[in-house]
């Protein structure tokens, strides 16, 4: 079995069509991308015991007792920890195991990711069946989170090597899959839960088992579909530019040296600022549009608090529609901006993200005050394309700056910026909003300062992006080091 998974078994034969690799990457990313849609489970899980209504725990029940009790239901805030664990373990596993991923290749990594991700579902199913929330945190959050990290970085290096002429587009296709995973997974979970629900069960553990099996098969198919190009392969008819542009290196920087360069940390900040701003908006999209426009969304007058319960239900549905539109913008931006970066260059692409993003975030409060729902929706759709584009363009940016040899591992380390942003963005947005409301600012205007702060984050990102210069050649690997690294990858003694 180990031989079947080894890197040398995945080297493509002459004549192999490189367009077979992106679907393999998509199979993995579409499977792990369901992590974004896990909130679909929160409400049914919060009444797993009560079935129709949540059974609250006694006020005097301690934290550890609540972890193991089968007598009362879980709170949504407790379940939400799974989401936090996902992104913490995604970033940390990608950072820690990145060099291993480069060494063993995409197939073994994909298989390990499939085992982690699907076993996370199965352990969580057991946790739901036994009503032990720590099993959900451990299963989906920790073990599944490691599967997320490994699965996310598994195709990056391979795709960049197959598509040296279209690095942005290639990684954009895979990373678009991560954005699209929730679009498939969330409605699928909804269908399955309704199918398995009975008068004595909310049907979630059965859904977890089914999805675990589906994702295991899909990810294994993806892992076995991976092929790596032979060393020094290039597409027929394509020749690298005789004169390299100053921002695309011809050398390679080892992962152990890359993170000691200022370029790595500037790019870390670029990703962190872009994601913090975008993730902050995603978290508040639905309540924000409802609170800012209130009854105007229904053609009525009055603020959100003045509406009838029926109108509030209608507004919630519009809020969910807005969040859905932002998801579509997010995945369109992933493939669109990443492909566009192949033509205008990575530095200019991020320059657009930060400069245009700054203008749009700064305009958002005015759009709210003018009452133009269309303008407001368009502003945020464009912002979300740039959020997705930031994720999808960063691997190509890293390959331009550090070379392709260790780009997967370097990308893995850079994903710690995502984990940081996953905490920073929502905390910043929520605290600023609460602070504003506590000081008596009307809820419709409580987002104004938030938008200006997020625009400020983009200015920091803009400055960091402008600071990214080509890496000092002393950090690049020598010809001997590169040969030794490739021999090690090929399973030979260096």
């Amino acid at each position, binding site marked *: 079995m180990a031989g079947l998974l080894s890197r040398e078994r995945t080297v493509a034969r002459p*004549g*192999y*069509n490189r367009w077979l690799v992106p679907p393999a990457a998509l199979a993995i990313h*579409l499977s792990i991308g369901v992590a974004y849609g896990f909130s679909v489970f929160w409400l049914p899980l919060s009444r797993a015991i009560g079935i129709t209504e949540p059974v609250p725990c006694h006020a005097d029940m301690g934290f550890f007792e609540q972890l193991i009790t089968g007598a009362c239901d879980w709170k949504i805030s407790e379940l939400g920890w799974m989401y936090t664990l996902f992104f913490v373990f995604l970033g940390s596993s990608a950072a820690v195991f990145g060099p291993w991923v480069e060494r063993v290749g995409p197939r073994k990594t994909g298989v390990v990711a499939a085992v982690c991700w699907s076993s996370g579902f199965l352990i969580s199913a057991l946790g739901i069946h036994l009503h032990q929330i720590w099993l959900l945190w451990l299963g989906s959050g920790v073990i599944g989170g490691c599967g997320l990290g490994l699965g996310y970085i598994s195709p990056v290096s391979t795709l960049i090597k197959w598509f040296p002429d279209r690095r942005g587009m290639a990684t954009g296709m895979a990373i678009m899959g991560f954005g*699209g995973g929730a679009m498939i*997974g969330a409605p699928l979970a909804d269908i399955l839960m309704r199918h398995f629900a009975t008068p004595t069960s909310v049907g979630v553990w059965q859904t977890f088992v089914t999805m675990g099996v589906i994702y295991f098969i899909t990810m294994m198919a993806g892992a076995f579909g991976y092929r790596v190009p032979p060393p020094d392969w290039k597409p*027929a008819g394509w020749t690298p530019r005789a004169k390299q542009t100053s921002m695309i290196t011809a050398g390679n920087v080892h992962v152990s040296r890359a993170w000691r360069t200022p370029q790595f940390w500037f790019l870390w900040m670029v990703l962190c600022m872009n994601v913090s701003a975008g993730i902050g908006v995603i978290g508040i999209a639905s309540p924000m549009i409802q609170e800012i426009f209130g009854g105007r969304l229904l053609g009525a007058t009055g603020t959100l608090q003045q509406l009838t319960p029926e109108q509030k239900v209608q507004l919630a549905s*519009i809020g969910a529609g*807005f969040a859905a539109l932002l998801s579509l913008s997010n995945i369109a931006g992933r493939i669109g901006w990443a492909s566009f970066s192949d033509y205008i260059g990575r530095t200019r692409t991020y320059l657009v993200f930060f400069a245009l993003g700054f203008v749009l975030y700064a305009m958002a409060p005015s759009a709210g005050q003018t009452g133009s729902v269309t303008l407001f929706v368009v502003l945020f759709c464009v912002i979300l394309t740039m959020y997705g584009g930031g994720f999808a363009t960063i691997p190509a940016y890293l390959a331009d700056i550090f070379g392709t040899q260790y780009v997967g591992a370097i990308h893995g380390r850079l994903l710690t910026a995502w984990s940081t942003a996953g905490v920073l963005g929502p905390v910043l947005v929520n605290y600023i909003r609460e602070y504003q409301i506590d000081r008596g600012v009307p809820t419709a205007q409580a987002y104004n300062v938030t938008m200006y702060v997020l625009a400020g984050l983009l200015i920091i990102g803009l400055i960091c992006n402008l600071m990214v210069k080509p890496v000092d050649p002393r950090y690049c690997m020598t010809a001997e080091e590169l040969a030794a690294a490739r021999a090690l990858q090929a399973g030979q003694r260096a």
Partner: protein
Amino acid sequence: MATNDASGKDADSSWVLVVLAWLPVTLPLLWGIWQTVKKAAVLFR
């Protein structure tokens, strides 16, 4: 060393394979996008 040089029958069959490989990922993705579009359509009613 250029190896993306499949020609004639081999090239044709490899493109058939490409279509077959893309279908299982494209169809669910399109279904997911359609579900999301339906949800987003509420905004425009």
